[in-house]
């Protein structure tokens, strides 16, 4: 069983490596890049500049550029707004980390609130002594009831 798992993981790692090493796919790139005029992804746009960018991508793929090189070349021409998702480095990393941070903060807040609410509704501490005045009144009431 263990050997099977190791073989499966090795296969997945090798398959992922083989995919990353291959030439980039034009359709994938077109879905990850934005037309600077109509501001939709290239695969959704027929604007003249989008067509020109698609042709550029195909030429660069044929020339042997990898995905990052093609994206970098387009960012050098049109700016970082051409990327459909912010880069996972530098300032762009914030866009990825902030939602995660907000999620963690939300979970912590919910946990704290639940703890606070359940603490309020918990059973009274049996060890805690009653107020002497209250205890005296309670005894009197009980005595009167029993008497």
């Amino acid at each position: 069983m263990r050997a099977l798992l190791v073989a499966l993981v090795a296969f997945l790692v090798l398959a992922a490596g083989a995919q990353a090493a291959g030439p980039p796919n034009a359709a994938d790139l077109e879905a990850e890049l934005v037309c600077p005029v109509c501001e939709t992804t290239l695969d959704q746009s027929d604007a003249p500049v989008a067509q020109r960018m698609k042709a550029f991508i195909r030429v660069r793929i044929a020339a042997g550029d990898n995905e990052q090189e093609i994206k970098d070349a387009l960012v050098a021409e049109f700016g970082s707004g051409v990327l459909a998702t912010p880069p996972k480095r530098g300032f762009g990393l914030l866009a990825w980390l902030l939602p995660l941070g907000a999620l963690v903060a939300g979970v912590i807040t919910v946990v704290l609130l639940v703890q606070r609410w359940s603490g309020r509704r918990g059973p009274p501490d049996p060890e805690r002594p009653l107020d002497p005045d209250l205890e005296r009144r309670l005894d009197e009431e009980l005595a009167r009831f029993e008497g």
Partner: protein
Amino acid sequence: MAHRGRLVAQGVAVGLVALLFLLLVWALVTDAGGDLAEAAARGERPEAPDFTLERLDREGELTLSSLRGKAVVLNVWASWCLPCKEEAPFLEQVWREERARGLVVVGLDAKDFRKDARRFARRFDLTFPLVFDGPGDVAADRYGVTGFPETFVVDREGMVLEVFVGGITAAEDRARLRAAVNRALAT
């Protein structure tokens, strides 16, 4: 202690809302988008937003305010834009005829490949200064350009006299541009 903590949290929340409000006001105040054309149409003379951009026709950069004292025709174009092709020879003609009087035509190429822009300039034999605004930030954010081409006539004091939205291809538009250039040169 808990009361003090709550007060601090409330203070932080109010501060954040105030900050967001100030950011909104700042964005609205500094956004020239569309206002230039409207103000020029009302006969006002809004200041042409300054910029420094990479040159396409030679090495280095060009700063608009460095042209103060000259009249400027700022033409926003792109190589893939059809009306830009139609008006380019006319703008070159105006530049050649009026440069001795102190006119500078500046071509601002936006949302384009540098290589395509240079090819366009060679094809139409453009000899006026060309600058590159690939992301289109200067064109869109400072000049409020929403389509291509747009042309701004700026006087010698750096004020926008007239804005042309769309290609300057019709005879009446060309006459209007020449009149605006004459007004700009006369300041």
